């Protein structure tokens, strides 16, 4: 599974599809973030509109991504969280770490 990437006003937008879970979806998310960093992106937005669920392995990749992007001097933010994913990110308090948006324009504009 390869995560689609697009660019808008200097922001790299990743849009994972389906399950961000152990074995496939988690690895795809990691690869997509690594690729974006390798390509020099410092503004990364993950759009979860088409994501269906996320387990603890997906969450592990999400916090790992936060750390990696921060260490490269960039920022990573989240967009369009479905209510079930919003729910588990709240319970695990991961949502305290990330800026989370419901509107793409706002999210893109928020990077400086």
């Amino acid at each position, binding site marked *: 599974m390869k995560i689609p990437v697009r660019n808008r006003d200097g922001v790299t937008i990743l849009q994972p599809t389906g*399950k961000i*879970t*152990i*074995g*496939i979806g988690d690895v795809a998310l990691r690869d997509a973030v690594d690729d974006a960093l390798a390509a020099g992106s410092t503004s990364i937005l993950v759009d979860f509109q088409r994501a269906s*669920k996320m*387990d*603890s*392995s997906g*969450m*592990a*990749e999400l*916090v*790992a991504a*936060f*750390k990696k992007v921060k260490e490269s001097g960039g920022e990573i933010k989240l967009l369009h969280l479905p*209510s*079930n994913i919003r*729910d*588990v990110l709240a*319970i*695990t*308090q*991961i949502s*305290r*770490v990330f800026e989370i948006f419901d509107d793409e324009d706002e999210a893109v504009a928020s990077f400086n």
Partner: protein
Amino acid sequence: MLDSVALTDMAEQVLQIKVAISSRFENIDLVDAVMEAAMRHFGFDEETVERLGLAIREAVANGVRHGNRQEPTKRVELTCDLKQDVMALRITDEGSGFDVDAIPDPLTANNLFNPSGRGILLMRAFMDEVAFDFDNNGGTQVTLKKSLPSPPSDAGSEEDES
């Protein structure tokens, strides 16, 4: 979905589901799919099915990854029993167990970036009861329990029919 008569008579009923898988990540989806369908039949609403399904995924994934270290000849087994008004699940692996008390709390500031520890947190958040037992050969047995929702009034049960 079960009607209220079925729920009342549950004491004498047998409703058991077992799923056995070899330790491959993609098999976790089978357990998830089967249990989500079963939980809908038991009368849990969609949001609860989603949450309980995730707790079950985490227990099974731990058996596959940490317990059986993805050795495909080793199995993870789930047993789900509906007794009275409780759904009781048992998830077993053939691993060598672990020290539950040594798992760091994933909610402390220090551990927020720790990749691990959230599976058990989610089980505890979504289930009424979570217990770990370790058999003599070392395998882990996770017990998860959840009360069934109270039976819907007859008036509100239209949607079951489709």
